[in-house]
């Protein structure tokens, strides 16, 4: 049902839902939000990759989870050598974990399966500034192409016996690799611009026209907004 919804609605709903979650302050409501997010993922049809994404934590998030229990003041619940873990600190770490996970799940459920290369018309319809939108579309179009180029270059390095280590040869070689990727990217940029000129481009980028919104789309929007308002209200009362 979500996969068939209008991409405009999905993007706006995701933004509102995540904004609401980010402002939660209490543990039980955050847990409820997390449960709602799981429900949403199930409705959307869970993707196996999603659970891997959940395990991906940024370095400093890990730092946050590890240090918060020991650095925040409060009743001590456990000691680890000279360190004392407070219950307030542990609650705070749990709160953050729930909110971050709920956000990641919500985003995955609502917009995780949209191909960035197809977002041009959607962002255009959402009145995103024209130049920014074209920059976005162009970048999305070329990321995979350039990634493949970079992959093949680094494979050629491996095939010639390269092994990375902490030394100048490695840093210089990686510098060459990224430098070559950039130089080739610049060449390509020039030729792409020429290809556009050759097909009569005169500064007006044509976007596909999106179909009108259906009742189904508005219902999705309304339910996401209602959930957002509900959890925020519960949180503050």
């Amino acid at each position: 049902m979500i996969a068939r919804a209008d991409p405009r609605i999905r993007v706006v709903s995701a933004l509102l839902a995540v904004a609401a979650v980010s402002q939660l302050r209490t543990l039980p409501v955050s847990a409820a939000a997390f449960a709602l997010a799981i429900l949403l993922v199930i409705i959307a049809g869970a993707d196996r990759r999603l659970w891997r994404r959940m395990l991906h934590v940024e370095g400093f998030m890990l730092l946050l989870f590890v240090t918060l229990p020991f650095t925040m003041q409060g009743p001590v619940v456990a000691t680890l050598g000279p360190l004392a873990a407070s219950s307030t600190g542990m609650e705070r770490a749990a709160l953050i974990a729930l909110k971050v996970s709920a956000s990641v799940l919500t985003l995955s459920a609502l917009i995780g399966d949209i191909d960035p290369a197809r977002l041009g018309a959607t962002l255009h319809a959402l009145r995103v500034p024209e130049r920014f939108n074209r920059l976005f579309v162009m970048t999305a179009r070329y990321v995979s192409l350039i990634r493949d180029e970079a992959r093949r270059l680094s494979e050629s390095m491996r095939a010639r016996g390269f092994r990375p280590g902490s030394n100048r040869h490695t840093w210089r070689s990686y510098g060459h690799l990224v430098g070559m990727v950039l130089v080739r990217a610049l060449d390509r940029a020039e030729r792409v611009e020429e290809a556009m000129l050759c097909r009569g481009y005169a500064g007006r980028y044509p976007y596909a026209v999106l179909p009108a919104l259906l009742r189904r789309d508005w219902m999705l929007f309304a339910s996401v907004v209602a959930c957002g308002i509900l959890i925020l209200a519960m949180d503050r009362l």
Partner: protein
Amino acid sequence: MTALIELRDVTIARAGATVLSGVDLTLERGERLALIGPNGAGKTTLLRSIVGLEPAGGGSIRLFGEECSTERQFRKARPRIGFLFQDSDDQLFCPTVIEDVAFGPLNMGCTMAEARERGIAALEGLGIGHLAERISHRLSGGEKRLVCLAGLFAMQPDVLMLDEPTNGVDVDNGLRLRQALHDFPGAMVLVSHDTEFVDELATRAMVVRRGRLIAAEIHEHAHVHRHRHVHLASD
């Protein structure tokens, strides 16, 4: 009747070095002109300067009877010349195939509906209508080549300029491509290292060599070859 493309005594330099000089070239309606020559001779450079991407240093370029020297003048002529680039990845810049194919017609002032219709027609003409909604950069090399060509056909150009159209195309897609080019009613300038392809399609040939463009002839005669051949052991 005026020639479609007419170059008189054109000189072209790249990065300061003269690549071609004294180039005379005329393309008449219905002609299929092959340009052949070694690597780095300047074939691609010549095609680029015909559509004004590479400024000519001297001489005159007339497209469809009109003198072209400024970007403005070239811009008017470009939609009538479909230029297939040597590398397909440079030419497919829209996310989906149909958007890419409709890009030319849209620039020529078609409405979105008309442009899509012309795009679909061009794709179907090449037998690849089923690719319309695909993401363009996830196609195979041969499919990309055909989509680029469909993008040109959708503009309904008077002249096609093809820079190594058979590059990276496998047998099946190659057959479709040849058929489509055979059926194209307009004139054509063709760069290719694939002699069989050139022999089959071209009506006239010129050779780019040592900075010059020289007329060539296409003969037909029999040869006796003696060489080693690879056969499947089970043959």
